[in-house]
């Protein structure tokens, strides 16, 4: 077959040095085999002499002329094209637009200014509005912004508005969810093959479900509100293949911090990061979300993971909307390929003040800390709290520094109070946290991950050192400009809480 001839070409360095493909922990970077494959230009002449093929979309059939990556296929379908290549500028139909209390008022403000006071949004069932950033605060303007969103949603008949009116007790608001990226998944808005845009940079989290998801600004969102379309440039895809058995003390957060440390905070700028390999296949959906969540911290446009049985099981339990997964073709072109042997990796942290300032957790054992924060779209999901609780329970010890817990959503909060932690004799996370001396789990929201208004729970108001399961540690991120944030996995955060120093979780997990 002509196509098989072509398929062998995209990777010129595909088979080079097989023995290099097993590597161990950094920082010996030579042990991490990096293939920067020059994209060998596929001769269009060869394609043109191929036998004519029936006009079927490559995204929906197995027969392909020119291979496309997952991201290219999703964008091609959304643009109603049979083929797109990196660099193409295409108008894309948006499946879901998400906004929240911080950017929603501005996006709707621009929509009204540009389309008219009486204009209606393009589709009230495709817009999801999730108040989550500044909720439990006395800040008048923050409260006003939630009120503004409520007005817009009423006027526009927005179907999915996860409102909160009683700030005194979040549980009195059955519609309220919490952190948008976790709520999107839990409420069935993340579906393979679709295009999701959000006015938040961590919208890339949803790539875990095999969809194209990226963050946009208010003005672009205002345009989408009116038209349902957006102009996108097709990104080249970098492939990250993670193989090997995941050690019991490692979490997805360690993997993504490793990768960002490898390629830097601008290493994937304008590009897609596609994750695959046996390790990725073994990860739960929440762990996959952690992996894709921090793609933006490498500058990436989107992250994506091929959907599998784990994905379908999660999604089908949460939505009845039909969807169609797509996968990268065998002969797709990748801008680069990185391979990691996960079984050799060790727990890591990102030191202040950049997410790519990677160090082994054990190398930082002399760093004294003032507090620990577990929360956010990155590290505030049910499994993140289960992991922390598991470590606390295994140690039988009490925390030595204030330890703040902010479940991402109402569902996570309920899990913390209801689900038994495996191996603990039926105790819940909440019981274990209380016994360990942590602060009582707070109301679900973005909390102190991004500082927020001065009365935000657990905000870094002093120049302290914090180990956090969140996503950014630039100066001032959690409140105080001179604060120092060490980004870490829930295991590492919990271990650090027990010692008062940055601590490798292997000290407590045998």
């Amino acid at each position, binding site marked *: 077959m002509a196509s098989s001839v072509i398929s062998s070409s995209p990777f010129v360095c595909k088979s080079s040095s097989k023995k290099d493909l097993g590597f161990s922990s950094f920082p010996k970077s030579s042990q991490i085999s990096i293939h920067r494959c020059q994209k060998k230009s596929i001769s269009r002449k060869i394609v043109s002499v191929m036998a004519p093929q029936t006009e079927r979309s490559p995204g929906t059939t197995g027969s392909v002329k020119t291979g496309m990556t997952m991201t290219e296929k999703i964008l091609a379908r959304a643009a109603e094209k049979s083929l797109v290549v990196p660099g193409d*500028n295409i*108008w894309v139909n948006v499946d879901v637009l998400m906004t929240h209390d*911080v*950017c929603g*008022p*501005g996006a709707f*403000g*621009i929509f009204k*200014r*540009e*389309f*008219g*006071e*009486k*204009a*209606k949004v*393009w589709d009230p069932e495709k817009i999801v509005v999730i108040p989550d*950033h*500044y909720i439990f605060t006395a*800040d008048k*303007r*923050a409260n006003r*912004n939630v009120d*503004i969103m409520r007005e817009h949603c009423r006027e526009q008949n927005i179907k999915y508005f996860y409102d909160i009116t009683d700030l005194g007790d979040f549980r009195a608001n059955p519609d309220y969810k919490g952190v948008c990226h976790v709520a999107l998944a839990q409420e069935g808005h993340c579906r393979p093959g679709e295009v999701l845009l959000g*006015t*938040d*940079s961590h919208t890339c989290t949803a790539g875990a479900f095999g969809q194209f998801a990226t*963050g946009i*600004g*208010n*003005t*672009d969102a*205002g*345009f989408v509100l*009116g*038209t*349902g*379309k957006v*102009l*996108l*440039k097709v990104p080249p895809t970098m492939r990250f293949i993670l193989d090997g058995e995941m050690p019991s003390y490692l979490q997805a957060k360690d993997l993504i911090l490793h990768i960002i440390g490898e390629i830097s*905070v*601008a290493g994937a*700028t*304008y590009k897609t990061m596609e994750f695959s390999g046996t390790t990725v296949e073994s990860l739960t959906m929440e762990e996959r979300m952690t992996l894709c969540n921090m793609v933006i911290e490498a*500058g990436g*446009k989107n992250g994506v993971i091929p959907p599998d049985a784990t994905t379908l099981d999660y999604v089908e339990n949460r939505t009845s909307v039909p969807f169609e997964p797509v996968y990268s073709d065998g002969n797709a072109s990748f801008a680069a390929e990185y391979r990691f042997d996960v079984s050799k990796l060790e727990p890591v942290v990102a030191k202040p003040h*950049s997410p790519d300032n990677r160090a082994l957790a054990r190398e930082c054992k002399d760093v004294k800390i003032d507090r620990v924060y577990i929360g956010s779209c990155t590290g505030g999901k049910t499994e993140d709290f289960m992991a922390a609780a598991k470590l606390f329970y295994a140690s039988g010890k009490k925390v030595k520094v204030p330890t703040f817990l902010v479940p991402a959503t109402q569902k996570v909060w309920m899990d913390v109070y209801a689900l038994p932690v495996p191996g603990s004799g039926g105790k819940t996370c909440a019981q274990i946290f209380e016994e360990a001396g942590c602060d009582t789990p707070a109301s679900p929201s973005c909390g102190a991950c*991004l*500082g*927020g*208004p*001065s009365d935000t729970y657990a905000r870094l108001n002093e120049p302290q050192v914090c180990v956090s399961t969140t996503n*950014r540690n*630039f*100066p*001032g*991120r959690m409140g105080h*400009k*001179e604060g120092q944030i060490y980004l870490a996995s829930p295991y590492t955060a919990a271990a650090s809480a027990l010692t008062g120093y940055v601590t490798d979780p292997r000290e407590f997990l045998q």
Partner: protein
Amino acid sequence: MAASLQFANPTLSQTLASPIRSSSFRSPFLRFDSSSVSFHSKLVSSREASSAFVTRSAAEPQERKTFHGLCYVVGDNIDTDQIIPAEFLTLVPSNPDEYEKLGSYALIGLPAAYKERFVQPGEMKTKYSIIIGGENFGCGSSREHAPVCLGAAGAKAVVAQSYARIFFRNSVATGEIYPLDSEVRVCDECKTGDVATVELREGDSILINHTTGKEYKLKPIGDAGPVIDAGGIFAYARKAGMIPSASV
């Protein structure tokens, strides 16, 4: 009500169909090679009136735009929290009063090591019209408040080695500020307070530091230029006939 509904959506989906096919509209706010640039339009900057520094030649087919003023110099990875800390995101940029206020907080998140403030306490505007940065300027959050606050403070252009994607796109979509790429690391060669000129020309844009007497080549802004000239993606799309005028 029903009429406006018809106006807003079906009309737009029709008009949006044209740019897909139109070769003259390839790249309004994405990055391009200079070779694909073919804009000779004389778009009037909506912000021209507000800036005494902006001049442009009227008749030349190659449009020329010049910003002259003081530099404010920062380093690498200036993220959106340093440009506008999250506590100020309660300000809604599309509200004119709050837009002005956002400007007064521009770059207030920079660490104390930056002795000189970008906007003096009590002031609403900056005295620096050109920001000079290193790699990955504007990384972090997707908050449009970041380019907006720089524009609201009165800055005209950022000259950096590279940009984070969403910041670049938001700068162009809003038309608030010109994100220009330098070919060399100018942030090491300029100091805050230096007097500089940015000349935007097709092909060979330059930054001149009058204080040091050095001149630096800038990469072409490409098709993003006319969008910023027009005052953002909506104004540009109207001028290009892609979407109808707003009915207020």
